[in-house]
């Protein structure tokens, strides 16, 4: 992550800031961090599979700074789209109802 909320005014500020540009509060610079790991244990396999895809891309592909952004997903691994598919996977899995989707098996088309 490259931003974090100012502890005083709650506006997001860049990690390297020494003072909040919005309210002036002194802050300690932070190092850039990866998005917090998704909690895998006890969660749906889709959460793991999706998070892994977001974090790593395909196995044999070179790393790229323009990889899909984890901020487009909720902590439960749900993609948030304009049209609003319901983000309930985590809850639904916990109820023991879900079978995870099959892993994809190569390109097509």
């Amino acid at each position: 992550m490259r931003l974090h909320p100012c502890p005083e005014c709650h506006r997001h500020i860049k990690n390297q800031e020494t003072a909040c540009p919005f309210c002036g509060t002194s802050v300690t610079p932070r190092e850039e961090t990866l998005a917090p790991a998704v909690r895998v244990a006890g969660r749906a396999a889709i959460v793991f599979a999706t998070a892994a895809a977001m974090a790593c891309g395909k196995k044999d592909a070179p790393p790229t700074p323009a990889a899909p952004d984890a901020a487009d997903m909720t902590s439960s691994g749900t993609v948030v789209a304009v049209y609003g598919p319901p983000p309930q996977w985590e809850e639904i899995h916990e109820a023991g109802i879900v079978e995870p989707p099959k892993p994809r098996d190569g390109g097509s088309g």
Partner: protein
Amino acid sequence: MTNDPLRPLGDDERSAILARPRPARSLPLLEQQPKRRYLPLAEARDSDRQYEPLLCVWEVTLRCDLACRHCGSRAGHARPDELSTEECVELVRQLAGIGTREVAIIGGEPYLRDDWTTIIRAIKDHGMRATMTTGGRGLTPERAREAADAGMWAVSVSIDGSRETHDRLRGVKGSYDAAFAALTNLREAGIHVATNTQINRLTMPEMIGMVEPLSAARIRSWQIQLTVAMGRAVDEPEVLLQPYDLLALHPMLAELVPLAKSKGIDVVAGNNVGYFGPHETALRGRTRTGYPGGCGAGRITIGIEADGTIKGCPSLTTSGWSGGNIRETPLKEIWERSPKLRYTRDRTVKDLWGYCATCYYADECRAGCTWTSDVLFGKPGNNPFCHHRALEMKKKGMRERIVRVEEAPGLPFDQGKFELIEEAIP
């Protein structure tokens, strides 16, 4: 204009808008599919192969049983050349092949296709999650059971404000009650349900009041998004929020989120609900970074029109953002090589303009939702629907207002033209 910023429309103005007949030109006008031309596919790059359209949003038909007055696609009649059942099943196979995890079918109304359960079943059989977003007017118990039997995972039903406002926006009296009946039918069929709401000048004052009925309907997930100036929404611009309305909207949402949570409802902010104000954590704290990450079109999402046209996001204009057609080109080729789908993969701060080009958050946000700004000004990269921006304007005693200067032509996913006025706060 009232003194209450959450009620930007005065009572008389609001009543007049609610009572006004729909503009004649906003009836479905599509008789013939316009001839499409696409940019040539570019050379394949390794970097493009890292992107997978985790979420596909697929308009399976433009046929609709509602007549929503904000409908971006001007749905009503089916397109003249929608994909056949066989073409749909083949498209499902190709989606699975390029890494799609979830296929959300939309319309029109998907259930108005006779083969909609065949499509649902194909999605499930290919290991993807089948979901749907619907107005729900015709989601009878029988249709809900058919969908469940075919493997429908979850359905989001659109509900916009109070009964009066919803029925007016959706263009059909009784559609509010039908939407709640659909939720019941879906739940009884064993399908998980959620809801989604348009935010505009008619619904904004009613959102707090929506918590009780949604809670009573046992909704657990509620997606919200701003009504965008596309399609029929261009025909009635006074219903759209103004950029400065976000100064009232975001504090209200900061109140709404915990209120809804107390009733067991998670509010999910869509990608166009403004950005980077002091309430960002309340709105998007559950995302992995806790803040908006810019447009996902062509990076994690893909949109499909009913005739097989492929876009990076279902909401983007057909004329400006179609990357190809599945009838002419394999999906994998379009996904990896279409310049239109690559747009957000390659976009940098240099592609931004206006306020967004100089914004503190430019590198993270990159003007947020491509769709929202593109339909206003004919190009993306300068998005006035931003809380941070409205706050910065306010500091200077200024605000921004959009004014329609050109109507939309009357085709699905069309756009008008707007000017951005910067003015002193009255």
